[in-house]
């Protein structure tokens, strides 16, 4: 039986989608993945599994997605081009579809020098845009790179990422357009703390007419503490945490900082719901998956619609 992507159905119906990130463990225990899945089930439409995020070796995204699928979730397979060449990537795309995984998110991946294997060779045989194009061609034309026919095409809803906060800013919307032209059907953005800049980016996105061509899910990361806010502002590449967010976190007493972080997340979601062209949110609660249900409920996005 061919199941369909829940995320695709939700977005095509015009519902405001909720996805969340599920980070796999640095070990082989499947229970860790299942337990995280249980925390998210019912509160999100789909769950992303990261692919050796920040270049750190973890249980592979494909296996974790299969485990989540068996728990009744709709997984989003994150696939980076850093570690595998086009032979391996296309092979895994076929394998994912065969296992019933229906969503894929194509990325280039964090550079290997940031991770726990800094001496590894970065593959980057193809880039994220070329991966999007390859998956789209596999699905719609039933062809791999180079034109050879597949016996059966993969069934995948194709996503890409966008960082509205990175440079060169003016080119960022054009870059989104490139990804859409290559075949991306949904976009999950970098965590939004600077709403003003995100709005400016959305204006550019609408100028390009992209809000009608692709579903955009705004990235949300609840802050655990003022220290985390400062760390993300200074140490994490491509992250924009404005001073006002840091001082707001600092103003809260240490014990209440988590609650303040959740409050900021909920307020951001509500602001995004009002923004034309934003079709959902993607919650990345880093090693804090149990907070997702609370955020979804406080943002009044629970219960999730039946499809």
């Amino acid at each position, binding site marked *: 039986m061919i199941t369909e992507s829940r995320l695709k159905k939700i977005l095509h119906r015009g519902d405001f989608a909720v996805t969340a990130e599920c980070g796999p463990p640095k070990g082989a225990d499947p229970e860790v993945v299942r337990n995280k899945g249980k925390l998210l089930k019912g509160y999100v439409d789909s769950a992303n599994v990261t692919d050796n995020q920040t270049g750190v070796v973890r249980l592979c995204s494909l296996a974790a997605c299969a485990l989540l699928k068996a728990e009744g979730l709709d997984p989003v397979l994150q696939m980076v081009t*850093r570690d595998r060449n*086009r032979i391996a990537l296309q092979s895994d795309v076929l394998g994912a579809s065969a296992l019933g995984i229906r969503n894929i998110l194509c990325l*280039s*991946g*964090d*550079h290997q*020098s*940031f991770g726990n294997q800094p001496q590894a060779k*970065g593959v*980057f*045989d*193809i*880039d*994220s*845009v*070329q991966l999007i*194009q*390859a998956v789209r061609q596999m699905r719609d034309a039933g062809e791999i*790179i180079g034109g050879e026919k597949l016996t059966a095409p993969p069934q995948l809803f194709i996503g890409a*990422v*966008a*960082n509205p*906060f*990175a*440079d*060169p800013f003016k*080119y960022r919307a*054009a*870059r989104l357009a*490139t990804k859409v*032209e*290559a075949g991306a059907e949904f976009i999950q953005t*970098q965590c939004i703390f600077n709403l003003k800049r995100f709005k400016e980016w959305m204006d550019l996105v609408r100028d390009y007419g992209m809000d009608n061509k692709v579903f955009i899910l705004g990235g949300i990361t609840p802050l655990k503490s003022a220290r985390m806010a400062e760390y993300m502002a200074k140490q994490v*590449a*491509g992250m924009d945490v404005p001073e006002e967010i840091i001082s707001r976190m600092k103003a809260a007493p240490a014990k209440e900082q988590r609650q303040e972080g959740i409050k900021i997340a909920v307020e951001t979601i509500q602001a995004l719901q009002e923004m034309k062209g934003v079709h959902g949110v993607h919650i990345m609660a880093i090693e804090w998956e149990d907070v997702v249900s609370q955020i979804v409920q406080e943002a009044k996005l629970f219960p999730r619609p039946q499809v």
Partner: protein
Amino acid sequence: MITAERKPIAEIKEMLAPYRKILVVGCGSCVAECASGGEKEVGLLSSALRMDAKASGKEIEVKEMTLDRQCVYEFIDQLTDVIHRYDIVLSLACGAGVQAVAEVFPKVLIVPALNTTFLGETKEAGLWVENCRGCGDCKLGVFAAVCPVTRCAKGLFNGPCGGSRTERCEVDPDVPCAWQLIVSRLEDMGRLDLLRKVHPPADWSKQQGKGPRKIRREDQRT
């Protein structure tokens, strides 16, 4: 040019340790330009080896020679009458030069004094930067003469990654983001349209091919 850096002296000494008669051979081309393997560096390294041997009470003989090029037979031939008098040859050429000499003298022991690093330019005195990977399929014409294969840490063909801030590369803040350069240069030239099309996957067979690559030009063969 091909750039190289001298190996640590301890590593060089370890390779030479069992031998007494040493021929130190420099190269007057790229590695002389980047101050790692020319006549001057041959002199400095040879003196260091002699002084070190003297200090440790070891008797060695070090002969210095520098060829115009170690990668071309006509110049390598200058070693023919000399090379067999030595136990070992310490080459200050790039990897291509070391192997070219070894091919000509199959029975001679030859070891490298340099780590060959990259194809690059002299940015300023004492600073060399990589800007070509020799991919065999140059696309500088569409990327405003900035090579994304070499100068973008992820070798991206279709725009910048999400990590560039304040126009610097996330991997090394000393390095400008290659895509920032490409975008602003094309903007200045009014050619941002060149970025609108999706660049297909590169043909890496032109770089890796079937093992080592070769260029054969019939018009150059006599």
